């Protein structure tokens, strides 16, 4: 699976909904249950899955799924 597919799987797991489909522009307005608690769950799941660590600046910049995918890919290259 590529990063986007893995991220999609994380969204489905966190929101316990296999029908969730995300794309690069998907943001909190598109998923009703995506609140600050879910956001932390997503971030922690991504850290675990991709073996990366986000910092304060990373957290500030995350607006949508595309931001998440790009951040993960850049952290994995380091």
């Amino acid at each position, binding site marked *: 699976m590529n990063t986007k597919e893995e991220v999609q799987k994380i969204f489905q797991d966190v929101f316990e909904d296999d029908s969730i489909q995300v794309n690069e522009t998907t*943001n*909190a*307005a598109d998923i009703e249950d995506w*609140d*600050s*608690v879910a*956001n*932390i*769950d997503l*971030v*922690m799941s991504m*850290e675990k899955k991709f073996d990366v660590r*986000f*910092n*304060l600046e990373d*957290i*500030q910049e995350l*607006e949508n799924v595309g931001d998440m995918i790009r951040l993960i890919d850049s952290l994995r290259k380091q």
Partner: protein
Amino acid sequence: MEVLDYIYSKKKTQKKKIEALFSEMPGLAEELEFFLKRYLPILGGGCSAHQKLGDSYLKMSAQMAFARLQFLRDGKYPTQEHGDAIENVYQNRETMLQYMLGLALSQYLWKHHYRLFQFYQHHVDSIEFKPGAKTLEVGCGHGLYLLYLLEHTKHDLAVDVVDISETSIDLARDLIARVLPEKADRVNFVCSDIQAIDANEKYQFITFGELLEHVHHPDLLLQKLHGYLADDGYAYVSTCANCPAIDHLYHFETIEQIREMIKNCGYDITSEIIAPSEDKPMEELIRKKIDISYGAIIRKGKA
């Protein structure tokens, strides 16, 4: 509102939560406008004041989110030493000012902070202060609680304010000087760590909001303030469970732990509010260690 438009333009995810809160709390928008009208001038007014307040709020929100992430990763609050909180936050003028401005705005944009402030206002309104009564506030922070106390009590109170941060003192002093200049001379500001102060005063009312989580031994602080409280006086205390932040040290895991400590330090709780940071079932709040704010009006116990 300009400040909200600015926040939404910088961080779209804020819009959903804030708009939901506004539709749930009628009158909140009006209160926010009133707050902005009085608070923005201390930041110089104009467009840059809106931006400064908005940026401060966004930075504080991100710091809180990151502190939560660290807390959930490591199982402990990210700041462990009082000295680190002093150096990195209380004595760091830029960080402290941004943090306090962010928290000031959160009194209107975060439901749990708003509810605690409402609780405080309701109880201050109902206390019968004696003319010239002496009161104490420990940790004035952004100054909004102090402003409310001074503005909404019938008699002129004398207020001693102790805060560990010069930045907070300056912010609160400036706020009172601009909004209530006629009462500015009723306030005696002291920049010090309350833990290091020994005084013989007795106060009719003590405000110590969001203080206990900032020290290693909140029980010792509660005992100390017990000595300052008049036998027929009241105090407002607030703190929080599972609430990591850049300067929080003491980790209350449950509301029951907070209540127990207050009672064990010789107080009776006369009224309380439990305000979760998220609208979730209690089981989920506890399981996910989501922060819950707690506020209470307390007095000396009869035992």
